[in-house]
């Protein structure tokens, strides 16, 4: 439930009432625009998102502006397309490469499950202040060096850039698409888990990290157990946390176990 931040039930009435009662100021409009076009600096964006998560009315306005902006752009594009259409060259080259599409002869697209190889990276995580232990132990992961070949890696990296900038939500949204494409990939599950954890969503983190550790061969196994423990710790499930830390043989886990006793 908490994981789906975007799925607030909107209603037309709600927006209407809001509109009648409170016209938004030019300043607010510009702030929301900057939020939508990604030109906020990190601190501002984080603060704004914080505000958004607490203010349902603001959230509605932000959503409304988003639709408005998309509507303007889409309609403008539509009108431009009609202009483009007039400029399609008449002297069409014979349709050389047009495949014969018969009704039943679709080319099947093999959606190869892109496997993401582990990547070199650094963590930049905001420690939480909620829990002393959690913040004490929630530290950067040294990462692993690796190569890149497929384009899925591009999306993965792209998300990683957001992740490093602290834009966990964006990173998560990109990685979740990869996850849909190649479900069960332990790398993606792992980073989705840690991104959710960094985004203070321990429940989702637990779910993804559990998927990671389901693969006992995963190179992320140790780290995943450790972060899973931290995720439990964050949601005050101390017993479960201890269990995960005990499963993990890493030093980090042993240290935190000492503190827990």
């Amino acid at each position, binding site marked *: 439930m908490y994981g789906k931040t975007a799925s607030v039930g909107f209603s037309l009435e709600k927006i209407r009432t809001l*509109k009648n009662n409170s016209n938004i100021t030019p300043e607010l409009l510009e702030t929301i625009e900057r939020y939508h076009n990604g030109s906020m600096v990190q601190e501002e964006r984080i603060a704004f998102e914080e505000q958004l998560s607490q203010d349902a009315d603001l959230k509605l306005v932000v959503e409304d502006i988003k*639709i408005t902006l998309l509507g303007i752009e889409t309609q*403008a594009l539509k009108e431009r397309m009609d202009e483009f259409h007039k400029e399609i060259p008449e002297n069409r080259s014979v*349709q050389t490469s*047009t495949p014969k599409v018969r*009704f039943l002869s679709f080319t099947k*697209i093999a959606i190869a499950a892109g496997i993401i190889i582990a990547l070199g990276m650094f963590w930049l995580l905001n420690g939480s202040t909620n829990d002393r232990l959690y913040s004490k132990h929630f530290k950067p992961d040294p990462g692993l060096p690796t190569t890149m070949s497929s384009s899925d890696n591009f999306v993965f990296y792209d998300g990683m850039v957001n992740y490093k900038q602290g834009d966990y939500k964006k990173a998560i949204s990109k990685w979740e698409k990869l996850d849909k494409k190649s479900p069960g990939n332990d790398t993606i599950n792992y980073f989705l888990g840690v991104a959710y954890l960094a985004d203070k969503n321990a429940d989702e983190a637990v779910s993804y990290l559990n998927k990671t550790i389901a693969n006992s061969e995963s190179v992320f196994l140790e780290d995943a157990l450790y972060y899973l423990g931290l995720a439990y710790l964050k949601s005050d499930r101390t017993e479960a946390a201890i269990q995960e830390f005990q499963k993990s043989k890493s030093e980090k886990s042993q240290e935190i176990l000492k503190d827990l006793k």
Partner: protein
Amino acid sequence: MEHLYNPDSQLQLLNAIKDNDSVVLKQLYTTNYYKIEALVLKNNGSKDHAKDVYQEAFITVWKNVKNDRFIPENETALQGYLYQIAKNKWMDILRSPRFKKTKMIQHELNVLDKNIDQNGHEKDEEHEFFRKRLEQTMEAFKNLGAPCKELLTAFYYDKASLRDIANKLKIEENTARTKKYRCMEKLRQLALASKK
């Protein structure tokens, strides 16, 4: 920021599309049209069908690029994606009762596009509400007075700066800012007032 990936032509293309770069969009539009036209003409369609289906597909592609929903897999991935979406849309039309000739098996094309396209595959309430609001906004924008429409197009679509817009209109930048704000308010009101 360090560059972790090689910006290849597809990525540049994607970025240009996100910026609504006119030259690039026009190029993409004009160079890929005939493939679709040929497809539609060969499959019981007319030139008008081809244009409609192509434009719909073009908007879908543009939207998915904007939202980072499209993942390039090779050098001509985007062009292929555009073709695929247009083809799917046309197949949907063919499958509709009027065109139906053969029983179709639900194909697995376009897994990516499946839950995001505009063909009504996904019809939960929120999606429906969003779509409706978007339509209302587009309709309102279509009928918005020319001065507002031009200003908003320049700013939001062509991404012109307020200063450039102000220079063009020979007004102060602040005046342009205020105008833009008022036009937005007007548009939003129009959109909300339409089709209760």
